[in-house]
């Protein structure tokens, strides 16, 4: 096992030379990549001896012989993948098939805003200034999986919304895996910048279309300037041989609002590293999640909010429902610097275990150095309320439907703040189907 573990790391490190043949090594970004591969080579994959990875093991994934570069370019018909789009409304779409951009399925724009590709942004001189200022500025230069992604960063979504602009419609970022490779490793790299007073909505989704193994190690950097508003929705409902490590880094300036909703309803192993850095005053950082798992699925939510300036807020609300042998982790870290007086930081993580074999590990981590702050955190783990079930049953609602209704009610707080109505309906339906019921009305 030890030898195999070495293999994926070695394979990645040695692939870097081949990778270099296909990128512009004179671009300043390549210096960043070269630094990053060194860091990954030193550190390797995280393991369970590290506190941050105590409950999530990547050992089994490392035994899989992943292809790092897909051998051929694949096409998909829109009709075959339509259900994965929020097709009820018009959206911008940035679509990747096996990690390669699909112009056929995408709808990008340069009208007043840039909603396009990282590869184009890295290649074209007109984007160089933005890349120089923002690329890899908030992403960790130390965390091994982030640096692994940085080393191979080449493709992903590039979104730049100038001052006072708002795209006409939400943006969907979709990744499809076609199963052309027995096992495929994907490393998308997204850069999202909202300048002063800009506003945008993003929906991100990863979908494996076959039963072949897929692992995605994604890094997204988000910059919200003064008064910017960003809503980011992560729909994680992949099949059970798809694993996702999502590393999202958010830098906020004064009076900005960034809300990330994470709906973890599928996949084999999912790790969400969601990191907020508050670089200004009167910032609102909100992260919410609904997790519903069964079988042997595993989701690990690791959040970090670093309050670096006074008068800011952060809100965390994660609900989890765990069935069968599924496992969940919630680790919420809040750092309040000494200077960050009048901080309001709230954290809530509530879980329901609907099976004796399901597990949740939940841990708040508060490091508070300021003395005039309001911080609260609460974790609960429980079963469905028997009295509530009985109440619904006495109204004629069968036990199974009653349980689903209660679980729906339990996760409702998180759904309330979804600002795209069609997405909210979709998520509601996904949740209802995860709970295995047809209710008498559209939730």
């Amino acid at each position, binding site marked *: 096992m030890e030898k195999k573990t070495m293999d994926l790391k070695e394979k990645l490190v040695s692939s870097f030379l081949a990778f270099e043949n296909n990128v512009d090594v004179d671009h300043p970004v390549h210096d960043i990549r070269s630094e990053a591969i060194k860091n990954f080579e030193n550190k390797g994959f995280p393991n369970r001896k590290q506190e941050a990875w105590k409950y999530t093991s990547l050992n089994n994934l490392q035994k899989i012989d992943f292809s790092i570069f897909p051998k051929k370019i694949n096409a998909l018909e829109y009709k075959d993948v339509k259900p994965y789009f929020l097709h009820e409304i018009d959206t911008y779409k940035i679509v990747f098939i096996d990690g390669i951009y699909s112009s056929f399925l995408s709808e990008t724009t340069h009208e007043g805003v840039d909603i396009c590709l990282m590869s184009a942004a890295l290649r074209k001189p007109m984007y160089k200034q933005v890349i120089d200022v923002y690329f890899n500025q908030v992403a960790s230069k130390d965390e091994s999986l982030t640096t692994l992604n940085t080393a191979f960063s080449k493709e992903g979504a590039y979104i730049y919304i100038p001052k006072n602009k708002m795209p006409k419609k939400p943006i969907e970022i979709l990744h499809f895996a076609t199963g052309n490779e027995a096992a495929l490793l994907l490393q998308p790299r997204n850069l999202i910048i909202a300048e002063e007073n800009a506003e945008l909505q993003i929906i991100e989704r990863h979908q494996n279309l076959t039963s072949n193994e897929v692992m995605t190690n994604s890094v997204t950097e988000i910059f919200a300037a003064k008064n910017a508003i960003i809503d980011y929705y992560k729909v994680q409902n992949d099949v059970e041989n798809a694993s996702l490590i999502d590393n999202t880094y958010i830098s906020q300036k004064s009076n900005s609002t960034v809300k990330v909703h994470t709906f973890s309803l599928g996949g084999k192993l999912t790790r969400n590293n969601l990191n907020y850095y508050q670089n200004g005053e009167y910032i609102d950082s909100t992260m919410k999640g609904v997790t519903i798992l069964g079988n042997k699925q595993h989701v690990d939510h690791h959040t970090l909010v670093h309050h670096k300036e006074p008068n800011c807020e952060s809100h965390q609300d994660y609900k989890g429902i765990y069935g069968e042998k599924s496992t969940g982790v919630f680790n919420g870290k809040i750092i309040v610097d000494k200077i960050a007086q009048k901080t309001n930081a709230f954290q809530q993580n509530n879980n329901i275990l609907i099976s004796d074999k399901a597990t949740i590990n939940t841990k708040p981590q508060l490091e508070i150095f300021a003395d005039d702050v309001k911080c609260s955190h609460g974790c609960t783990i429980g079963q469905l309320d028997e*009295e509530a079930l*009985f109440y619904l*049953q*006495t109204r004629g609602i*069968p036990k199974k439907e009653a349980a689903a209704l209660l679980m729906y009610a339990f996760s409702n707080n998180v759904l309330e703040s979804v600002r795209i109505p069609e997405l909210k309906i979709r998520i509601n339906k996904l949740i209802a189907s995860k709970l295995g019921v047809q*209710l*008498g009305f559209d939730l």
Partner: protein
Amino acid sequence: MLKVNNLHAGVEGNEILNGINLEVNAGEVHAIMGPNGSGKSTLAAVIAGKEEFEITEGNIELDGEDMEDTSPEERAHKGVFLSFQYPVEIPGVSVTNFMKTAINESRKARGQEDMPANEMLKLIREKSELLEIDRKFLSRSLNEGFSGGEKKRNEIFQMAMLEPKLAILDETDSGLDIDALRIVANGVNKLRNKDNAIVVITHYQRLLEYIVPDFVHVLHEGKIVKSGTKELALELEEKGYDWIKNETVV
């Protein structure tokens, strides 16, 4: 309609009901009174089918059919309704949607189609007027942030919507001010007819001034120790429960 025969029931070996006999016929209103801890709410929950309680002896019959192994939802489909002392909050599910689900689940169980939307709306309008319920109230999440009075009024609204054969009202008067009590009682009275029966469970005589019972039973230590007509309630109010307790001892 309802026959409770020598019912012994409890939870985890603790017997709470010690041989209850009760017969309720269509068109009747029965009041069950008793001090705290006498088993009133347990009796209500056992009739509604709460699985937590184990029946160790005796049985419950509804229209001649033994209710053993009948789930709470099946009892609801047969026309049993329980108004809760502490109704449960369901965030994200409006009163209207909740009622639609409840009614259509019962219809499904009876082999009927879903109630057509216009019919449902008409029914909701009619019944909400009966209980002086504001339209806005119906789009709020079920019981979430409701006052005590709103919760109880909503319970009776549900009863009006579901039109049960047998309604058990568990401490419906607790937490109500006099105006709310009047509205709730009026609602119940309008729902009374020759085909249904109502069992009112209460600690105080107050509610019985508004919902006048045909029979009053006094429960003490899991047993009906005295039965009579509405005058018994007045006598109880006057003499207090100690009177019953002392009499039982004698």
